[in-house]
């Protein structure tokens, strides 16, 4: 029997139809070849720096630090990247890899629309075709991003099955990939799915923690490490990118913030690690929100980007070994943090990222002034303003 590939402890693997096996094997071989290829890395770094505006700033949030009166707070400004989120790091990496593999067409799923916009952008830049699958409900929640994707030349296909959100978009993208493999790369948006995707996405996002490390040393002196790194977790790509280069630095607390929706004790939640069980879905073994018969639960969060019933296998593993902590943040806490950061620092964060800000607001006051928290602001909040206004009872039009 062949050995299962891409395991993080018991998690991960390649639970996909036979039709796709040669495609992921081909991808694995290509990635193994290019990940250490100086030419490929030079091209990617050039795209990240000159096109996507990296390195992103590590900003000392002085107002927030003073206001909370505890740990020193830094914000990793992924929101300042081109297209407004960390998603571009992975989209450019995968698009470039796909191009090297001779693929001419990218397909992708999207929840909040940020990964869809990033993929459509990379496709436009590299001259590739692009089709984005998006739940119909999410298309309504994130109409502006739908317009952007189409403006960038992508086809956006509405997914009406199931809950018409991110998980259904992933399922539909997988179905489409089995239909057309030869010229098509599935540019998956998070550190999930079958091997090698969780590793590929993690590697392309790990630029976040690589930069945090040297930027913090530049700001705070040699050998300075943060005491905590906080990021939001849906599938978990910005979090794994923020954690990766700190995993071996045991003094650094790694905290992932899951979307608790209306609370982890309610059914209206998307906090997978806090409420889910071990399962097999979307190509991987990991934790999933599901019923006793293994039917995937309809999850809920105000944030379309965190509204997913599973979590990347490496997070499941970091949870199992106790290396990272995963906490639930409710809609109300996230919206309050969204408003707080806007008012305090003049930065409007994505509602996803606001989940991480909310947790920092809880723990910073209890920490000492010589301690350091880094919050990854995974994206900007422009896309969320209309929805948050509605949440607060104001009807504004995009």
């Amino acid at each position, binding site marked *: 029997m062949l050995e299962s590939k891409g395991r993080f402890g018991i998690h991960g693997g390649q639970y996909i139809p*036979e039709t796709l096996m040669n495609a992921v094997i081909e991808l694995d071989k290509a990635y193994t070849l290019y990940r250490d290829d100086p030419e490929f890395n030079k091209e990617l770094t050039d795209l990240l720096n000159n096109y996507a505006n990296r390195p992103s700033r590590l900003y000392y949030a002085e107002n927030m630090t003073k206001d909370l009166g505890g740990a020193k707070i830094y914000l990793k400004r992924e929101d300042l990247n081109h297209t407004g989120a960390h998603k571009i790091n992975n989209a450019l990496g995968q698009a470039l890899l796909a191009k090297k593999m001779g693929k001419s067409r990218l397909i992708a799923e999207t929840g909040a629309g940020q990964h869809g916009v990033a993929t459509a952008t990379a496709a436009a830049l590299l001259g590739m075709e692009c089709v984005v699958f998006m739940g119909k409900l999410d298309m309504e929640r994130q109409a502006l991003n739908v317009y952007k994707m189409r403006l960038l030349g992508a086809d956006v296909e509405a997914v009406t*099955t199931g809950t018409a959100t991110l998980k259904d978009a992933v399922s539909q993208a997988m179905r489409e990939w089995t239909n057309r493999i030869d010229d098509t790369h599935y540019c998956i948006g998070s550190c999930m799915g079958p091997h090698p995707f969780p590793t590929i996405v993690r590697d392309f996002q790990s630029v976040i923690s690589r930069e945090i490390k040297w930027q913090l040393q530049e700001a705070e002196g040699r050998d300075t490490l943060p005491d905590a790194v906080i990021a939001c977790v849906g599938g978990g790509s910005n979090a794994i990118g923020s954690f990766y280069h700190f995993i071996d630095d045991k003094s650094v607390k790694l905290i992932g913030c899951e979307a608790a929706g209306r609370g982890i004790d309610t059914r209206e939640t998307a906090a997978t690690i806090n409420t889910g069980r*071990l399962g*097999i*879905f979307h190509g991987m073994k990991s934790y999933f929100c599901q019923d006793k*018969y*293994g039917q*995937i639960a309809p999850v809920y969060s105000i944030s379309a980007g965190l509204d997913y019933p599973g979590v990347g296998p490496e997070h499941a593993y970091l949870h199992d070994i106790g290396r990272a902590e995963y906490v639930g943040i409710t809609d109300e806490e996230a919206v309050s943090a969204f408003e707080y950061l806007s008012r305090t620092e003049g930065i409007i964060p994505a509602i996803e990222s606001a989940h991480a800000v909310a947790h920092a607001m809880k723990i910073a006051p209890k920490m000492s002034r010589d301690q350091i928290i880094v919050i990854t602001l995974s994206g900007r909040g422009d896309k969320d303003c209309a929805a948050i206004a509605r949440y607060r009872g104001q009807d504004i039009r995009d």
Partner: protein
Amino acid sequence: MSNIAKAFEHGKAFIPFITCGDPDLETTGQVVRAAVENGADLIELGIPFSDPTAEGPVIQEANIRALNAGVTTDKIFDFVRDLRKDVQIPMVFMTYANVVFSYGSEKFIRTCSHIGIDGIILPDVPFEEKGDFDPICKKYNVDLISMIAPTSEDRIAMIASQASGFIYVVSSLGVTGVRNEITTDIRHMTALIRSSTNVPCAVGFGISTPEQAEKMAAASDGAIVGSAIIKLLARKSFHVRGRIFFFVVR
């Protein structure tokens, strides 16, 4: 020897696929018995899953209808116990990895063996991952059915050499659902399979007419028909139900 082999003893096997509980288990029972009367050789019973990633719209909708009507794995086990009082032909479950895994793989497969289920098809468990299920299947003498796709190529010998029960030959790229035309060279695939194993192979995915079923069976050992049957069933008329089995009676 696998009980499934009996399905292939009388020439080409006709294998209807039926989603359990669509729209209710009583109807599923009627359809299974009608299929048996009309000469079905093996029945593929679908246990619905909320997010069936290998299915096209027709079977996706059947799954949703069945789940909304309240069918569960335990109810399906009871249903099969009852069915086995008079249905003798081999029967296999087709479902997704999480349905088995979440129930407890050992408990699920042991129950299959007790109630007379001869095999399990899990479209999201490729060769590399069968270690989760295959040792337990062997322990309880339930065949884990291997699938071979048009893209399998250099993997065919590896998969076929470890196959048991029958081999599910996926006729086309993409998901389940009726197709006007099947363009894959099935004869070429079955020839490669037969150079590695004597386990029979049946072709499924996209078979929409009796003519197609005949053609696919001619190139292999049998034909699996799913979406075309579900589509007719969805129209809910008893008269239509009779028509389903003109696949069989031909």
